[in-house]
């Protein structure tokens, strides 16, 4: 009975957490559309999320794009289809790898940063102080971070995709694929549908990263240790969540939209 009771309690705890997260998500969306709006805080968060993540996105996208192109170019050379490198890079990067790679990189940085800051504020009563002095922590803390990520992540994905695809062209030249041939393949398959598939994902990833990170920060307990636990859980949930969300979205796009 002890083991069964433990399992029941665990499942009950998970369901309560899911419910709490759902309510937090609803409160976040409600807060986005009611005054007051904190413009200065939004600008600060845009800088932190966008400009602050730029270098790590540039580095990881350039490197990952070239690594992918190397693998593809080698195999395509064997089959005599080198000219298709641009095609396969667009499909791989724009539809799949780009959003996921940039999402994971940004998730690890932003989840840790947001959760650690908000959890520290919780541990030092700053969030309660905001309420005590008449401010709404959802509007002041969560909404700026949510909107900043919703704006920054898609932009970062575009930059990451562009760098990865360009990097692929550079690699292609090592396999005697001309730049013109490569870019012809890119243009042919950079269709509105492929772009839309690639750009829906960053918005959903951004929403998930922001909401999970803020939620874990707000719910942190246990002082300094709690800050560490919440931050770790936030990064793990965001990272795994991106992979799961990507899988679900890919299947939905194929089955429902046939894109």
């Amino acid at each position, binding site marked *: 009975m002890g083991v069964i009771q433990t399992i029941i309690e665990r499942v009950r705890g998970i369901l309560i957490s899911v419910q709490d997260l759902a309510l937090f998500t609803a409160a976040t969306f409600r807060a986005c559309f009611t005054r007051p709006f904190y413009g200065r805080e939004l600008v600060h968060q845009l800088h932190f999320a966008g400009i602050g993540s730029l270098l790590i996105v540039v580095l990881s996208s350039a490197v990952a794009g070239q690594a992918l192109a190397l693998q593809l170019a080698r195999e395509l050379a064997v089959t005599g289809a080198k000219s298709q490198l641009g095609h396969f890079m667009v499909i791989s990067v724009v539809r799949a790898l780009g959003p996921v790679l940039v999402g994971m990189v940004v998730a690890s940085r932003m989840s840790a940063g947001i959760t650690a800051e908000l959890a520290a504020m919780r541990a030092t*009563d*700053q969030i*309660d*102080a905001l309420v*005590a002095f*008449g401010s709404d922590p959802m509007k002041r803390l969560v909404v700026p971070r949510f909107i900043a990520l919703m704006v920054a992540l898609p932009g970062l994905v575009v930059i990451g995709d562009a760098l990865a695809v360009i990097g692929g062209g550079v690699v292609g030249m090592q396999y005697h694929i001309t730049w013109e041939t490569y870019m012809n393949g890119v243009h042919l398959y950079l269709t509105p549908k492929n772009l839309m598939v690639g750009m829906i994902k960053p918005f959903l990833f951004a929403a998930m990263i922001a909401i999970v990170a803020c939620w874990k920060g707000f719910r942190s307990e246990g002082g300094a240790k709690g800050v560490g636990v919440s931050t770790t859980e936030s990064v793990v949930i965001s990272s795994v969540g991106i992979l799961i969300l990507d899988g679900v979205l890919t299947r939905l796009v194929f089955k429902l939209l046939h894109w």
Partner: protein
Amino acid sequence: MIEFRDIIYSIDGRRILSDVSFVVGEGETRVILGPSGSGKSTILRLLLGLVRPDSGAILVGGEDLTRVNEERMRQVRQMIGMVFQQGALFDSMTVAENVGFSLLEHEHTDEDEVERRVRETLRQVGLAEDLVDRMPDELSGGMQRRVAIARALAARDPRILLYDEPTTGLDPQAAQRITDLILHLRDAYGKTSLMVTHDIADAYKVGNCMTLLHEGRVVFDGDPGDLDRAESPVVNEFLAPFRSAVALAAQRISTGVPASRAPRPPSAPFSPGGTP
């Protein structure tokens, strides 16, 4: 002015407060005393609406706060100034932004007026005006606590002031400056105050009336003078370390023997210095 009526509050099935009742009259300073974990700070959180009781009523100016919605609660909070334990200053804001927080958030006062009121409030709490651009982590503990008091005062000239262990973690001189400030605010401005502390000396110095909590229950409610004469074993157990310290100090003063050589009364428990 403030009345707690039969308040019961639990967290995850664990009872924190049981049938807690007391009244704070207009202009009074009531001290909520008790050991760590007795539920003292929870009383302030209940009053601010940060948490809701399981049952009972909390009346402020005759209005039951347990029955109001969040919008009304936000309005009620504007007449309450809170000094959190350790200050809870916003560490991403300067001293000026902290003290002027409510003025900018609610009154939309122009920046010159905010600056004027911030400087005036800092003077009220005995701080130099040149601190306005400093960040909280650049200040000492005592200065942070005074900035926290200034922030509470600047908030629309509140009718009620709440203090959560305002001297915990401070050296004796800094602690005395804080209690002197609290007394000044009580006597000069007639604020209604509720102070939570486990420090008996502070309680006697500042309080007009006292409530002693033990395991979430009120075990004493009355004048400070009556606390020492109470016959309850729980009250006597709580006061025992204080009485031992007073007796030890009196013995040292009368005999001139340094503290390190004075025999310790057998009932005095070992108490390491610093923050409890």
